[in-house]
Each structure stands twice: as C-alpha cells, then as structure tokens.
C-alpha cells in the first residue's frame, strides 16, 4: 500500500511509503497532518572585516542563502513492529538517519536523530536542521522556554521592546531552546521537547524547526579563534539525540504533562549493572 500506519493504544502515525515521510499524527483525540523534513543551511564564509562580511561560526548562525531540504527525495523506510515499542527507521542520506518510535501506554512520539559526519569535501560548511510542518494557524507566534523555566512568547520578525533589523530573517528568528518549543492555534498545540540546548525557530505558520548539528569551516571572529570543525576522528563528528513530540489541544498555559516530561528527560533513571543470579532487594 502507499501508507504505513504505526499505532498503539494512544498514538497513531501515518507514513507515506512512496516518499518515506511522516504524514499524520493522531493523539489525545486530535489528528494533524505533520510533515517532517531535514534541511541544510550553508554557512556563510566571509573575511570578518565588516559586520555584513562575518562568517557563520561557533557564536553566530549566518546562513548563506535559503534552506536546502534533504528529504524531498525517497527516504528508505523500515518498520519494526514490537509489542511494547514500534519503530520506524528512516534513512535520509548517507549521513542523516532517524528512528521514530512509540512506546505502549506512552503519550508522545520519539524522534531519535543521527547526523554526521557532515561532509565538507565541497568546502562548504553546513548547519543541519529538522523541521516539523503542520496546518496549525499559529499567526507568527511560538513559544520557547526560558532556560528550562517559564515559556516565553516569541513573535516572528518582532521583539518585545524595540523594532529589530530583520535583514537576516532566518537567524534573526532563531531562539535558544533548552527544554521545549511549541506553537498553537485555537484548537491544537504542538510541542517539541529536546534533550540538549539547541537553536529553534518558527519561520512559517505551523512550522517548528530545531538545529541539530553544525560543521563550519571559518572562525566567526567573536573570540573562539577557530572554526567549528571537529575533525579529531578524521571525518567530523556524528551527533545523536532525541526530540519528543506532543500533539494536544490548545492551552493558555504549558501543560502539566509537558513539564513533567521535561523533568524526566533531564533526570532519567540512573542505571548500574552487576553480575548476579538473584535479584537483590532494597533495604
């Protein structure tokens, strides 16, 4: 068939088997068309002589042109149908892949991404993002956490207290995301929770994106004095991490479940291993 449906008692995912991409998500009694893609921003390379000639580097994100979307072509798809966990493996290209999983009785979707080594043979630095696109009419508004604490409202191309120069419209709309980023309309709300500090934005209504991995070939002259080009293994780093997605009804305040999940992500169980033929008891 041209659709792969992956579901448990709480979550239903639909994939397009011809493109390999995610099509819809159903959970909490809500259904939404959500398309996920991966993309590359080419890092600007300048001589750092003037502000408009500054390179993209460790401190500054300056894309050279618009995004190049990776997943528009065929994505290889493999499905593992377990009883407690169901997993979909997506191979986007040689150095971008992902596992999408749902656990039984868990009300969220897990995206475990793997990016790298980012090729630099073409002498172009690359900044890799993932983007979730939906039909939610967010009207330019989205929300990011304040260093893990309260959620702050962000408005695209605006600042709260001054008129910004938005000549760099992509990076000018990026905000730090250390816990979660969300958007909503009157009915639906999408929240992405991450496992590390990342940059994030909503460049179009209904869209959320997160920066996953960067490899850049120039220093940005903001102090570090070297390019963000980690080559200690000869080829560049492989980064692996998780994003959790919750689709729920709209709410004026962050949901309890989202806040609880954020704590669980930061403070998951510590695991210790011992050899034993019997199970010890806790005193």
């Amino acid at each position, binding site marked *: 068939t041209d659709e792969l449906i992956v579901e448990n008692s709480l979550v239903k995912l639909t994939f397009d088997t011809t493109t390999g991409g995610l099509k819809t998500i159903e959970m909490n009694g809500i259904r939404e068309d959500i398309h996920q893609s991966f993309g590359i921003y080419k890092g600007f390379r300048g001589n750092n002589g003037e502000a408009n000639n500054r390179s993209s580097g460790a401190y500054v994100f300056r894309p050279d042109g618009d995004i190049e979307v990776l997943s528009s072509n065929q994505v290889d798809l*493999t499905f593992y149908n377990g009883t407690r966990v169901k997993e979909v493996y997506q191979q986007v290209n040689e150095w971008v892949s992902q596992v999408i999983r749902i*656990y039984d009785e868990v009300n969220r979707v897990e995206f475990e991404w793997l990016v790298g080594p980012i090729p630099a043979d073409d002498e172009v630095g690359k900044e890799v993002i993932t983007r979730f696109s939906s039909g939610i009419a967010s009207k330019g508004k989205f929300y990011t956490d304040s260093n893990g604490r309260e959620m702050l409202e962000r408005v695209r191309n605006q600042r709260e207290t001054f008129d910004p120069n938005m000549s760099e419209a992509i990076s000018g709309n990026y905000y730090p995301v250390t816990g979660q980023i969300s958007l909503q309309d009157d009915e639906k709300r999408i929240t992405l929770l991450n496992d590390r500090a990342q940059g994030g934005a909503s460049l179009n209504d209904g869209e959320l994106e997160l920066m996953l991995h960067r490899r850049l070939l120039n220093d940005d002259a903001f102090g570090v004095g070297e390019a963000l080009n980690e080559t*200690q293994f000869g080829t560049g780093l492989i980064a692996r991490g998780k994003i959790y997605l919750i689709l729920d009804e709209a709410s004026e305040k962050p949901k309890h479940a989202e806040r609880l999940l954020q704590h669980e992500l930061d403070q998951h*169980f510590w695991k*210790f291993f011992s050899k034993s033929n019997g199970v*010890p008891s806790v005193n």
Partner: protein
Amino acid sequence: SENLESLSQAMGIMQHHDAVTGTEKQAVARDYDRMLFKAIVGAESNARDALRSLTNLTSGEFESCLDLNISACAFTQSTANNVVVTLVNPMAHASTQYVRVPVKNENYIVTDEKGREIPSEVVPVPWQVLALEHRSNGTQHELVFRASVEKVANFLIRVLPSPKSVVKNTAQFPQEKAIDE
C-alpha cells in the same frame, strides 16, 4: 567527600556558557571531557558504596555504562552471565519510564525484586545508528522494558538457555526494494 567535591567542581565548571553552548576551543572541549569523565568515574565508587548499603547485594559491581546513549555497554557486552540492573530515580517523585539496555541477541527474561516477570523485548538497533564503520560494538540489540521506580529498584536480566523464537517483525518500504535486496 573528595570524589563528590571533584564532581561538584566539574559540574560547576560545566555551567560556563562556553561549555553549555559548545563555543569553547576544541582543546578546551577535550579538557572538559577529561575533567568530567574523571569526576564521574570517581563518584561511581560513592554510588557503589551507597548501593551496596541500600541493597543486599553487598558484593555488587554497580558499574555504569557511559555509552548507553549510543547503544553500547561494555558490561553487558562482555558478560554471558545474568545481570542485575539497578535503577535510581533522581526525581522527587515516583516515575515510570521505558529502559533500554544494550544486549546481545539472546533470549532474556526480566524479573523484578519480587520475582515477577516484567514484559520485555529485544529490539535490533538499526545499522545506521550503530555506525559500525566508525566504532565496533558487540551489542547490536537493546532489551526494552518498562520500569516503575520510587527511589531505587532492581531488575534481574536472566539469559535463557532456550533458543529465541524466530518471529519476523520487520518490514521494509518500498517493498520492491526489499525483494531486490
């Protein structure tokens, strides 16, 4: 106290904005790595002493696997014996979470402290995630089970001698490609 002080100091240094955002020089990144690794390994002996006291496994190794996030664990890779995994919940309230332990492709049974079987399954780690061209790894599967933990809980992972029942539960799309392969 020395071990805990060392971990406390390392964590303090990791609050620097360069460590949080990754804007440090590469040599500094390696130094942070060295410092944090040394501090964690030192504090593991405190955790071991505490867990030997908190459980009746007085000779338990209580080893950590610092590569769990990349589906690798030297302890479960090297041993063919039964393994106890002790879960510590750092939160101030009980929590239920799925646990993934890198294992060989064997037939396992997981039991809790009362000897009750906990439903579990062995899931293959996809080859692209294993990144085998970049690292060797003998644990190409993960044992997945759901654990409810108030503060500390033990689970026994027993290797069963019986052969694993062969169930084909993977499918590849598009189907034509799978047939070709």
